[in-house]
Structures are given as structure tokens and as C-alpha cells.
């Protein structure tokens, strides 16, 4: 069953070389508009690996992930390795500036939609008691704010360096330590563990899954949607932020960023992988989700700030809810259907 899914995965090892080229170019290029897309690519290419390599890697990942879960202090030798990356991820004015700025939109989006469904005990910890999964967490830019709001967050990312960076950054803050944890693995592996009922790591289903700036880099969205459905509790929320597949997004994200201004190397983004909200909605609904809301986002490079907008032509955020199996909660489905 697992081999079947792996069989659907595309691309070979040429992509890995592309990753290293990207990171070199990224370090050479200064502040730029779409470099955060490059960063996203760097962190979430889990479906674009060679099948043979993946089976090999999985064993390594397993070992690393076991170590990652129990690690509370960082090995001093590894600290040196993480130094360069740490400054990149967590430098609010650096290459990931736009991603830091996006927190102003995505954290309230996630928080408010979750609050609509689960009333908060007290406003100091609005997400207390909720388990959240951050897919493709990178350096933990979104994981930490969600942890600060009281949720128990698990951040996963296939790139071990990113998990190391994230753990290093969150280890300094004792308030986050208990609530935020990281694991270097893929979504498939995690969903297999959860469904397989491996309780030694304490995996249970999640109240919410967040996949921010991930979906536009995946080759196989069907698998992604299926895995999300498996690991979410009935009635759980799925939050996605991604880029639309329109002429405008081609003009800005591909032509302007890659070809005209050459701030991003050619081939970093594949316009074919962008997905429109309608298609994403169709895909999710065929996997037992009901889409609650879709909202457009816009980045202003001059001010470095994101804002909500009526048009979903470029970036958008989507909130979907996993349908419950039993008929008692069909009431929620009907109201959701009338909303979407």
C-alpha cells in the first residue's frame, strides 16, 4: 500500500542538485521579493525524491526523528552547523522577511477560525487544549506563534537542518518547550504512524493541520489530502495558504521574479503546480472535507506587509473542515455547504 503511494511520486535526483544550487544562489542574492518561495522549496520537497532514495532515507529519518523527539538540549557540535541557517530563518529583515510578515495574516486566520469552533477558556491562551500539526514547518516561523497561543504544536519537515534550526530557536524559550515539538519526517510517515496506532510516541489525531506555502511545491496533492484526512479528528480543521494558478500569478511569480528580474533562478517555481481555489476545493471535497472559507492575500513589497484582499488571483488562504462520519454532525455539513 505504501509502495503504491510512493509509486505515484514524481521526479528523480536532479531535483536534489537543484536544491543545492538554489541555496547557493539564495545566499548570493540579497533581499528579494520572492526568495521566500525558494526557501519554501528548500524545506518541502518531500514528494520529489527518488523512490529508492526515499526508502533508504526513511530509515535514517526514523532514527533522526526518534532522537529529535526526546532532544531537549542541543549538542554543541551541531550548534555550529546550524549557525548560518539560524540567522537566515529567524532574521526578520532577511530573506524570509515576507514569510515573517505573513504571520500577521495567517496566525489570526487560524486562531479566529479555530476559536469559532472551540470556545477559548480564557483570552490569554486562546488555543489551549488543541493539537495542531504544522506541515512543512521550516524554521518554525508559524509553529512558535501557534505554540504561544497555547496549542500543542508538532512541526514536521523533511529537511533535517530546518528541524534542527527550529528546535534550537524554540529551546531557548522555556514557555514554548512543553508545547512545541518538531520531527524530521514526511506527512506520509506521520499519517501512517497515527493510523497505525503507534502510541509509543504519543501520536493521536490532530484538531488542526496547517500547510502554509507547501501545496504549491507538492507533486501529488491527492496523497496530501488523503493523509490530512487520516490524521485529522472528525470536525478538525485544515488550513492551507498557497498561490493561485492564474495569468497574474504567472506574471508576478514566474515572469517578474524568475525571468525578468532574475531574483529567483529559473525553474524554482512550476506554474503547473499552482492550484486554483476551485480545484483545491474540489480535491478536498473528494477527500471528505468541506471548505469553509477562502480569502485572497496580497503582499506589498514596498511596505513589506501582507493584507487581505477580495481577489484570490495571486495568494490565498483556505479553511476546510473534515466531515464527521456519523449523521449527528450532518448539521455542521449543511451549514458549511450553505456558507461555501
Amino acid at each position: 500500500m505504501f509502495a503504491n503511494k510512493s509509486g505515484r511520486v514524481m521526479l528523480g535526483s536532479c531535483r536534489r542538485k537543484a536544491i543545492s544550487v538554489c541555496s547557493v544562489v539564495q545566499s548570493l542574492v540579497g533581499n528579494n521579493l520572492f526568495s521566500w518561495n525558494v526557501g519554501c522549496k528548500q524545506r518541502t520537497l518531500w514528494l520529489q525524491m527518488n523512490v529508492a532514495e526515499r526508502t533508504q532515507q526513511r530509515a535514517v529519518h526514523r532514527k533522526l526523528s526518534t532522537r529529535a523527539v526526546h532532544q531537549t538540549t542541543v549538542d554543541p557540535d551541531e550548534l555550529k552547523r546550524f549557525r548560518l541557517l539560524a540567522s537566515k530563518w529567524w532574521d526578520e529583515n532577511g530573506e524570509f522577511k515576507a514569510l515573517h510578515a505573513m504571520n500577521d495574516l495567517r496566525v489570526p486566520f487560524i486562531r479566529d477560525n479555530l476559536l469559532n469552533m472551540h470556545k477559548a477558556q480564557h483570552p490569554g491562551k486562546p488555543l489551549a487544549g488543541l493539537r495542531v500539526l504544522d506541515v512543512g514547518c521550516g524554521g518554525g516561523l508559524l509553529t512558535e506563534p501557534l505554540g504561544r497561543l497555547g496549542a500543542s504544536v508538532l512541526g514536521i519537515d523533511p529537511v533535517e537542518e530546518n528541524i534542527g534550526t527550529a528546535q534550537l530557536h524554540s529551546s531557548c524559550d522555556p514557555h514554548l518547550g512543553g508545547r512545541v515539538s518538531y520531527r524530521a519526517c514526511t506527512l506520509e510517515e506521520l499519517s501512517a504512524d497515527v493510523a497505525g496506532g503507534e502510541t509509543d510516541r504519543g501520536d493521536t489525531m490532530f484538531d488542526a493541520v496547517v500547510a502554509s506555502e507547501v501545496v504549491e511545491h507538492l507533486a501529488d496533492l491527492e496523497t496530501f489530502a488523503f493523509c490530512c484526512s487520516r490524521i485529522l479528528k472528525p470536525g478538525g480543521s485544515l488550513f492551507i495558504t498557497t498561490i493561485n494558478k492564474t495569468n497574474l500569478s504567472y506574471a508576478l511569480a514566474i515572469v517578474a521574479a524568475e525571468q525578468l528580474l532574475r531574483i529567483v533562478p529559473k525553474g524554482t517555481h512550476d506554474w503547473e503546480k499552482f492550484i486554483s481555489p476551485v480545484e483545491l476545493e474540489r480535491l478536498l471535497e473528494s477527500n471528505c472535507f468541506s471548505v469553509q472559507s477562502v480569502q485572497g492575500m496580497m503582499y506589498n513589497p514596498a511596505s513589506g506587509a501582507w493584507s487581505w484582499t477580495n481577489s484570490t488571483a495571486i495568494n490565498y488562504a483556505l479553511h476546510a473542515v473534515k466531515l464527521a462520519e456519523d449523521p449527528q454532525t450532518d448539521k455542521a455539513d449543511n451549514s458549511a455547504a450553505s456558507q461555501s
Partner: protein
Amino acid sequence: MLNLTRASIARNGFGRCLMAEKRSSAVKSVSRGLACADHSDGSGSNEVYDVIISGGGMVGTAMACSLGMHPKLSEKKILLLEAGNKKVMDKVPDSYSTRVSSISPGSATLLTGIGAWEHITKWRCKPYKKMQVWDACSDALITFDKDNLEEVMAYIVENDVVVAALTKQLDSLSDHVQVKYRSKVVKYIWPAAHQAVRSVPWVQVVLASGETLQTKLLIGADGPNSMVRRQLGIPTVKWNYDQSAVVAVLRLSEPTENNVAWQRFLPTGPIAMLPLSDTESSLVWSTSHHLAEELMALDDECFVDAINSAFWSNVNQSELVETAGTLFRSALATFMPSAGSPRQLPPSVAAIGPKSRVMFPLGMGHASEYIRHRVALVGDAAHRVHPLAGQGANLGFGDVACLTQLLGQAAFNGKDLGAMQHLLEYESERQRHNLPMMAAIDLMKRLYSTNTAPVVLLRTFGLQATNMLPTLKEQIMAFASK
């Protein structure tokens, strides 16, 4: 000089956007010089506070209360550090204390929200409804009052009462706001700009007792000679006014419905009488160092005479100015028949409260930056003004209200409290409000420091014209009561 202030501040603000790297490297060099602590050092405890407020005066304690009472900050760990002792007040002492502040309605709203205002009103506070400000060199005057003395303009409250009320409110928040009294800070260790590997990312506060505390956000509320501001190396525009203020508690000759604040601009400096009760008022006399020392040396009777003559005598007026003043007034009356209120004289003083004469130097100061990474300045640490407008405490309370609201919102968005984004917003909002106020106060001080005829004529005309424009007066009152 004022232009210099604004330009330098604007430049700094703009420069920050462009030169974030440069400044952070400066911070780095400072922190390097102060020897960044090792990560493994641990400094004794792994406890990291969310906010540490350094300085437990009126503004610092108000900040602690305000943060403690904010619902979105209810899970944050807050600590207030005060070098002095705890100010407890079971009941109000019979005699008035010398240092008083004018609390505007905006500040009263903040204190009500914190829950301290009810303690203050229960103990002692004096609302006043009218303010008369007039010149010694001419008979120009301006009166401020709201709607025929129905609404209160501001309140005169003793500083001790404010601090004690805030302390009492803090006691009720002891579950997540801690206070350490008699704790003197020796040194601050600033975090490196980016997460350098072998350094602590938090601000470290080293106390005289040897304890080191860590915090995600340090709020400096430690007064005009702020150690936080000095150790950060924030450039501060400041000058001494070559003036000292003499403050005392006055006993009036006869009881009166004492609800007017009086201020007269003498060439040597303004003298103000602020109501405390029907029989007592507070004196704030700003004058040159030399004269202030003389006043302190006078015996009680002579001192009382000096006060009365300062308010009543017309020795500084020349004929030219008198004639010109009358002409202006009649000219204005033809345009605006609804002239301002007639001049009143303040109540005469009979005696001084025992041992209540105190003197302190005056100055102006403005920090060009209110914030740094993980640090914010509030109150006199950020801005220091002349007492002639009674705005010093109110500017500080305004800082408290603004910063609390922004920190609450940042916490609700899951942000790190020491992050620059909301701190920059605090700085811009408060500088936008504080700078015009400080410029106006400084301008007033300089305008009234001389008795050369042209300046006197100018300000006479200006004052009389303003007095006859009710909309302008309302604008001024609204701005001052925020």
C-alpha cells in the same frame, strides 16, 4: 533647536528602516563589550520573564498594573523592579505631601481601567474646573474652562497617593505580577541582533544582590536619568533650563470654593497655584537657580509675602505694553464680541505647610528612540518636560495605555513580546503625540522667559486672541486632556 529635535528624530526613524543592520551591529558590539553570557551558564535559573519593568514610580507601577489587568496578557509572567521600599498607605496622612501632579481625564480613564482610581478618589484628589493663565508683563490672560464649569478639567493628586493606590492594586494581581522591592539594577546585558549560537537571546538584568534575571521584553520606567536609556546608548536631546522649581503646600487666608488652577508667567519663570482642598493649595514656582535658593532660604513670612506679590503685583508692566494691550483687546472685541472671562485674582496665601518647601532642578529631555530590540522606554525615561503645563505624568500614562494595548494585541497574535514590529508602532504613535506637546511646552517657556517689549507685545496679542477663540481653546484642552 526644536527643528533640530524633530529633524533628528525623523532622521533616526527613517534611518532605522534603512540601517537596521547597522544598528543591530552596534547593539551587538555593545553586547559583546558587556560579555554575552554563555548558553550553558544558565545564570542560576531557567526562568524567563515575559516582561520586566525597571522602575516603580507612578508610570512604572501603572505599567505593571495595566499589563497585569489586560485579559490577553493573563498568562504572561511580569516582574516590577523597584529600588525603594513598598509604599503602603492605610489611611491618608493629615498633611498634604509636596509633590503633586495634574491628572488629565485621559489618564484618569486609564487609572479607572486599572482599578486604581477608586482608591485615589477614596483617599484624596481634587478636581478643578477652570484654569487661568496670565502674563506678568501685560494684562493679557487666557482662561480655560469647559461649558460653564460643569465638567472637570483635570485632577490634582499627590504623587504618593497615586503610587500607593497603584501598589494596592498590584497586590491584588500578585498571581502573575511579581514585584521586587529594594532591588537595585547594576547592569543590563543586551541580546545579540540575530540568534548567535553561544548567547542568550533575552535581555539579562543583573541586580545588586548578584541575581540575574532574564526577560523577553524590558520596559525602562526609571525616570529622567534612566539607566536603561544610558546603557543602550540612545542619543538623547536634552538641555537644562537653568531653572529650579520650588514646591510647597500653601494655606489660604480664607476657605474658598477652590476649583481653579492659577498660573502667572513672571519673567523669571512661571508661578502656579494648584488647588488641593478648600483651604490648601500646592505651589509650583519655577525660577532661576539663584532665586530659587533665595526663596528656600527665606523664613516663612517673607516667603508668603513673596508668593502673594508674585501673583498680584504689576511692577513688570510698562505703560507701552499696557496701552497696547488695551488697544488689542478693544480691537478684538469688535470682531469677537464674546470676549473671554474677566480677570480674577488668585486667593491670597496666609501660611505654608510645615517643612514642606522643596526644590528640584528642571530640564527638558527627549530620547531620539523610545525602543530597541526587546526594550521600550516609557515615562520620563523617554521624555522629560517643564512642569508649566502639568503634562509630565500624563504623557507617561499615555505611553502606558498605548504600549499595553499594543502588547495585548501582539500576544493575541502569538508574537514574541520583544519583537520590533509592535514596538516600532508604539514609538511612532507616542512620538507623534509627545513631540508636538513637548515643542509647545518648550516654546511657551522660552516665549515667556523675557520681558523685552516686542516679545511681550507678540505674546500679549497672541494670548488675547486665543482667549477669544473658543474653538481654539477647545482644541488645546482636548489635546492636553488625552
